[in-house]
């Protein structure tokens, strides 16, 4: 229900973002390929490549399956219990793992699940002699579930919370049993978002690097990302790095297409949009079950975080916060994270506008449909382009134009923006679509468009998802080390970089303290992201 001008504008914005991203990635690749490195010295598709490809996909598939399967009951329980004690903090906590540098998260996990961790001490007390080792596939899976279950649970919860209040009233007056509620209300809502969530988590796990090496127990656990990093950083063999990246993107794209063959049926309906009240699950067993699920998930999440806090508070926190190095790094991190977050939100909005314009066409032609598909695909697959490829490519591009250090902050922000894009799209796109369905006709009939529509109709409703998306993206960017490490110059020091730099000069205590502070900052961000939820609860 768009006017012709709106449709044209939407297509324009979509096209612009698509071209922008394609150019950014394409130019980096072109620059790398045109770099005269001689032909690649290593044969590409050796038995080794196939072995790590198989392992990459296998561990990613298992990790994704476990994350999503465990996230579903957690999201269902949280959705059913809007007044569960500490609920908002549990949800905020769920955004934390994403904002932590991977190494810190891994050390936290080892504090719990490691040989000397809490779990093994418990087992020892129970009479087990040998410590149970998590190193190997089990370690990788625990870590990936730790990082991704919260993400899946949050996205699922958001989908469940978008269900109109009328559904619950109706289901209660029809006297629907819990299983029927699940089958006819909750599952259809979850099913719409699950392919997207699965794809996202699969990509994150497929490109995992530090976790896989650290917890994998040996080089049998190696992902393609490790090989790409090695061929670019250690061997400096750009053609090989590009070929491996293409392999990674190609295979994963095929898998993603396979798991989401059809666009999910869209049956969002226009409703009064009144506050949600749940009438189901009021008996004792249901309450106990939900409490158990929420407690288990929270414990699983909170223990490694607690071990990070435990290590962090032993550091001289006050001294750290006051040091010039910290303040500089914090400012750099904040600037980059904010720019990356804002860019990611704006780009997502542009892409959503583009898809909306196509969806609104009466009979979209082949080109239009291909455009819409590539908008969707591009926003996801960009996660598979290794940052090391982007960074090195752009370094080569910008080199002739003077000191690259000058452009580095902007480049890091853009690379972080690309990384955050898939997340932001998954937060914003369902929210915007639903909002348009609810208000599109009304706005058109009132003749509201452009800025006044944005101010009077869009912002009040979309402020919450926009903030959530922004805080998501910022947390991601704050915890990212990959992009910065490439340019790593003394002028560009971010907080994770500082953590690593302290670790690499034996200052483990300082690193623990900084990681703790970084965690606090991320928690602060998620508080912004979940702002407004409290009022709604009482509304």
């Amino acid at each position, binding site marked *: 229900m768009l006017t012709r001008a709106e449709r044209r504008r939407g297509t324009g914005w979509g096209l612009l973002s698509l071209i922008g991203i394609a150019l950014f990635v394409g130019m980096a690749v072109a620059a790398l390929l045109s770099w005269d490195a001689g032909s690649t010295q290593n044969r590409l598709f050796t038995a080794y490549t196939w072995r790590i490809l198989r392992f990459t996909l296998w561990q990613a598939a298992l990790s994704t399956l476990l994350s999503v399967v465990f996230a579903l009951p957690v999201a269902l329980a949280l959705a059913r219990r809007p007044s569960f004690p500490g609920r908002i903090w549990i949800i905020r906590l769920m955004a934390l793992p994403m904002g932590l540098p991977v190494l810190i998260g891994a050390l936290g996990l080892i*504090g719990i699940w490691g040989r000397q961790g809490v779990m093994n001490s418990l087992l020892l007390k129970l009479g087990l002699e040998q410590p149970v080792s998590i190193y190997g596939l089990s370690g990788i899976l625990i870590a990936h579930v730790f990082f991704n279950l919260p993400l899946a649970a949050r996205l699922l919860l958001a989908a469940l919370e978008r269900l109109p209040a009328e559904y619950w009233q109706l289901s209660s007056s029809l006297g629907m049993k819990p299983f029927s509620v699940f089958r006819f209300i909750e599952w259809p809502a979850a099913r719409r978002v699950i392919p997207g969530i699965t794809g996202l988590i699969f990509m994150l796990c497929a490109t995992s690097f530090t976790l896989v090496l*650290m917890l994998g127990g*040996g080089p049998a656990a190696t992902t393609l990302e490790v090989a790409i990093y*090695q061929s670019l950083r*250690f061997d400096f063999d750009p053609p090989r790095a590009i070929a491996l990246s293409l392999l990674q993107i190609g295979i994963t794209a095929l898998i993603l297409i396979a798991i989401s063959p059809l666009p999910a049926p869209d049956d969002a309906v226009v409703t009064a949009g009144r506050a949600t009240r749940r009438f189901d699950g009021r008996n004792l067993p249901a309450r106990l079950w939900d409490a158990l699920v929420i407690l288990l998930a929270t414990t699983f999440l909170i223990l490694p975080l607690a071990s990070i806090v435990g290590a962090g508070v032993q550091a001289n926190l006050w001294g750290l916060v006051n040091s010039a190095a910290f303040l500089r790094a914090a400012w750099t991190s904040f600037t980059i994270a904010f720019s990356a977050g804002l860019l990611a939100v704006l780009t997502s909005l542009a892409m959503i506008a583009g898809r909306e314009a196509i969806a609104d066409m009466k009979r979209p032609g082949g080109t239009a449909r291909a455009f819409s598909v590539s908008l969707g695909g591009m926003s996801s697959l960009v996660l598979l382009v290794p940052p090391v490829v982007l960074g090195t490519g752009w370094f080569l591009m910008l080199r002739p134009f003077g000191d690259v250090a000058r452009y580095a902050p902007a480049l890091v922000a853009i690379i972080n923006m690309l990384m955050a894009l898939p997340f932001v799209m998954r937060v914003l796109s369902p929210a915007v679509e639903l909002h348009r369905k609810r208000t599109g006709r009304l706005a058109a009939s009132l003749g509201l468009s452009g800025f006044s529509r944005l101010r009077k109709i869009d912002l009040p409703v979309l402020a919450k998802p926009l903030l959530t998306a922004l805080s998501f993206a910022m947390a991601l960017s704050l915890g990212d080390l990959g992009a910065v490490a490439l340019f790593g110059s003394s002028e560009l020091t971010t907080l994770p970089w500082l953590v690593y730099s302290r670790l690499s000069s034996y*200052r*483990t205590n300082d690193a623990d303290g900084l990681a703790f502070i970084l965690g606090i900052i991320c928690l602060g961000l998620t508080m912004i992201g979940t702002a407004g939820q409290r009022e709604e609860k009482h509304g």
Partner: protein
Amino acid sequence: MRRTILSIVAAAAVFSLSAPAKAQEKTLTVYTYESFISDWGPGPKVKEAFEKSCTCKLNFVGVADGVALLTRLKLEGKGTGADIALGLDTNLISEAKATGLFEPHGLDASAAKVPGNYSDDTFIPYDYGHFAVVYDTQAMTNPPKSLKELVEGDPAQKIVIEDPRTSTPGLGLLLWVKSVYGDKAPEAWAKLRRRVLTVTPGWSEAYGLFTKGEVPMVFSYTTSPAYHMVEEKTDRYQAASFSEGHYIQIEVAGLLKGAKDKDLAKQFLKFMVSPAFQDVIPTTNWMMPAAKTSEPLPDAFGKLVQPAETFLMGSDEVAKNRQAWIDEWLTAMSMN
């Protein structure tokens, strides 16, 4: 409003680009690795000491590590902004020379003496360290006394090592095992594998696991205990002395062909092997100085393991065989 802001930004950008470089004293740009120039690294003190003697400005640019340093130079090619590259290790020298970016220093570098008597016409050593297995005395009372004992010891006592595909200490261990075991290296790795808790991408991850108490042994340097003794006043962490000898890592610096002021660059290289620079190294970079210091080293350094024998493979040999040896390692380590 938006247009105004844009034009201000544009103006600022143009201004900052076109602002002429301030006419001032000479500057020397040294590319190095990040931990060299961090607050506790040697960088700040070296800068202060050198600037006193040269009436110039010393500029450090830090990248992640020695490997990244070489990659950076390759990427920048002839147009590199570096006058000096400081922080390559001997394994990288062959590749570094192959870039054609370095030129012989033409200096008398005899002040720099490192075990194994390494010397080179292009690169000058500024510090060195022997690789070693560092162990936690609270978790382990009978550390291995040789590489053989490490390889054949109790699999329940674990070690964490670094990956030779992504880190220089990892490559160091690979070369050490190769030096001692030769063609039998794959068999040695197949045995050692049972003791390896995990293989980390870099030194920091491995050492982090070790200091968190997760594992009683880590692959690091003979100098690591010095940090704990000097800064933390504890001798809990010790290096194990291996009877076969230890593999050495020598860190070197070289002069780039494109250096703007060669005399100034050479002045820095000379300064590098003088006591003023060498005094800073032990307690900031936690490596052994490559030349005389003005005062004896802190006591802690006297307590460190002094290897009876030093292993070092030629850089060309390493460059030629690295990939084959890594493949060999991968096969041996991935067997079930």
